């Protein structure tokens, strides 16, 4: 095992140094991301035009530009931004004049809940259907599931969303087409729709839309893994021992298949939170993606840069967490 009694075990040390290295890399990534963001702003619309009003003279536009510091060269603006960001100050939104981090954190719960429910649907249905379709790969049911998963991968999100709204809201009238419904205030500005019936009803369609692609990916991953595992010697031994079907499938085969599936799901989680823009816009979901879209529409640069930094940070964090968890689940992994 690892080292003596007084010293920390070397494998723990290597893990800590690994984590430190990863955090260091993350900081570099965040710098690069913020720099790119600023670079892109040079080519986006000029916020001063709207901020000064439709009838402003050029002189008044210049006044606004100076007040905002937008007359300074690109690198100076970037340096000021970094200095403020290091103090946790990402500035005020141009259009609403509210601190941007507050705006993003206000929207974060909605995006997080949507992503969690979407991931829940994708995991449960994905694994179940994956197992079902692996048991009798040639049966009509399995073929139907596989065909469905192809649709899930290839249908664009906005089409899925609009079709679901058409079927369940307009034709059947069982589910609401937009919004979060009734929410309960948990603490401060954190509101949850998971605790009310109305909130849950509003979650179903957007969560399915958002999770459909991930569902299809997890389904195919599970099915592939299961087909392999079911052909392995240890599974055959289990069958030969006369173990009940349930024990063979779930205890022996599925358990081994789950490791890559769960890793994949973890990595997808960040994307579900960060890139739910299309889904949020179709269902008017009041999350961060919707905020970003409005901000781009209004050339609200502080909101855009803070959003990108927030999501980049989130994805980096999740990836790191998944890597560490993976090592705990599977001790064969080395952090080198």
């Amino acid at each position, binding site marked *: 095992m690892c080292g003596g009694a007084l010293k920390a075990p070397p494998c723990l040390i290597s893990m800590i140094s690994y984590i430190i290295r990863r955090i260091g890399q993350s900081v570099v990534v965040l710098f690069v991301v913020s720099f790119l963001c600023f670079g892109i702003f040079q080519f986006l619309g000029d916020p001063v035009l709207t901020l000064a009003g439709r009838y402003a003279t050029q002189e008044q536009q210049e*006044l*606004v530009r100076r007040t905002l510091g937008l007359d300074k060269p690109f690198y100076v603006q970037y340096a000021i931004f970094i200095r403020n960001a290091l103090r946790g100050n990402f500035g005020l939104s141009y259009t609403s004049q*509210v601190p941007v981090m507050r705006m993003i954190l206000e929207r974060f719960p909605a995006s997080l809940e949507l992503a969690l429910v979407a991931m829940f649907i994708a995991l449960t249905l994905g694994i179940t259907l994956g197992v079902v379709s692996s048991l009798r790969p040639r049966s009509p049911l399995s073929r139907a599931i596989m065909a469905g998963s192809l649709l899930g991968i290839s249908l664009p999100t906005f089409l899925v969303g609009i079709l679901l709204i058409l079927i369940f809201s307009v034709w059947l009238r*069982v589910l609401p*087409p937009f*919004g979060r419904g009734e929410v309960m205030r948990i603490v401060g500005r954190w509101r949850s729709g998971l605790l009310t019936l109305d909130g849950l009803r509003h979650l179903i369609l957007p969560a399915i839309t958002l999770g459909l692609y991930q569902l299809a990916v997890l389904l195919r991953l599970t099915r592939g893994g299961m087909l392999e595992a079911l052909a392995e010697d240890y599974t055959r031994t289990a069958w030969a021992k006369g173990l009940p079907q349930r024990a063979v499938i779930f205890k022996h085969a599925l358990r081994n298949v789950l490791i890559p599936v769960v890793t994949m799901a973890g990595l997808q989680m960040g994307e579900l939170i960060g890139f739910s823009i299309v889904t949020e816009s179709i269902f008017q979901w009041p999350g961060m993606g919707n905020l970003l879209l409005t901000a781009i529409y209004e050339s609200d640069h502080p909101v855009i840069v803070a959003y990108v930094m927030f999501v980049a940070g989130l994805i980096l964090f999740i990836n790191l967490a998944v890597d560490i968890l993976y090592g705990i689940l599977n001790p064969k992994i080395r952090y080198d």
Partner: protein
Amino acid sequence: MKGRVAWILIGLFVAILGSASILGMAKDTLVVAVMAPPRTMNPHGSDADCNLQIMANIFDGLLQRDADGNLLPALATSWERVDALTWRFHLRQGVKFHNGNDFTWEDVKFSLERLKEPYPVSEFLAFGGAIAEVRPVDGDPWTIDIVTTKPVPWFVQNLHQIFIMDKESTETRSIGEIGEYPIGTGPYKFVEWVKGSYLKLEANEDYWGGPPPIKYVVFKPITESSTRVAALISGEVDLIQDVPVELFDMVKSSPNAEIITRPSRRSIWLGLRNSPGFPGSDVRVRKAIYMAINEDEIIEKVMMGHAFPCSQIPDPPTVGYDASIERLPYDPEEAKRLLAEAGYPDGFTIKLTGPNDRYVQDEQIAQAVATQLAKVGIRVELDIKPKAIFFPEIDQHGLDFYLIGWFDGSYDFGRSFTKLLHTVDPERGYGGLNGASYSDPVLDKLLEASSSIVDPTLRADALRLLNRVAMQEKIAVIPLHYQEDTYALYKPSNVQFQPRPDGWIVCKDISFGE
């Protein structure tokens, strides 16, 4: 056994989900789905209509406009123009802000001066910058004079969208708080704003114009138009703004939905450079382009019937609109002849710039124009881009030929012309949105002459003359059509609603029928 319990549970769950949508509440709330979310609750923080229309429910201006665009008293009971620079207002007495503070002339002074702050407050900088002084007349706090730095003939025309704030609560709160919690004198009081979800307002029972008919109003932004339509058809909302052309038939086919339309204030037109050496400097070429465009076809095929041909930039309620101006006929043969006469028998190549996310079917209109002009030999290179890139190019004045839409928030063609077509002169505030540096000394003179006329009737005549010369003689722009404003109502709610020229949803004028 276990399986059956699960199925029963699932069945119950589905039944509950379904039934919850059927149970309604007693109708004391109007739910309006708007196409763009409000940006801020600071009434001077945005001059976008999506924001102003909400502010008009919470705040009052000195004046207001009715559903036909007429200027009416609000916080001022009457007004007059004393001389070229001075406007006199008699203020309404006994009005209270939603926090209980009394409305006084100091609030007017404070609000108008606030318009001058460049950031983080005002999108009405140009208007605020023109105000020199606000003072009571002869010590009477209910009669005030507003003095401008230079003659602003349209000054009162703009006062329906300059909202009056409470001095005390605005001075003591941070800009963030002001932007999230509005305190006005208007017919509705602020209740709650969950950004991206809804804004809830409650009737102001003490409103000086009498309590509004509907107790609660909820504005919900739904930016995706097909979702907005679905929300209406499924009865989630009572009234929606902006039904896109392609979804019109879907709304009409639903037994629960009813469409209301009216011509929009906004006209769509083409700007064209006229600098020497450029084909557009010859008025025959301008006429040829005009006559080569089949507007009826654009309305029928591109706008699917939902637009109205226009012959000028302003709309009927605007000062300077002239009903006698007619469109040039569609006549491609005559257009070819004019081109040949102007020295372009084989046409020429021109770049048409336009936005693709600003106006109804904007990109498609530009494509149709390109196809139609090709038939008379004018080769159009399309240069279509997002508005965030397009509008800064307008500000650079370097375009040759561009598609743009316009309506004047202050209902004044003189103001429009100042911005759109007067020779570019930033020092004097002319031509800020003149995208192709259009320049004509005759038109410039006509405009400048009109701005010193104090008498509103004479000034309107002068602006009509300017409009006629610009459109009939000079072909200063090539007009296409007025857009159509569309709304849809959820019939079972029986909402009594009359659309306004400005497209605002002013809830005190809306009620539930019996």
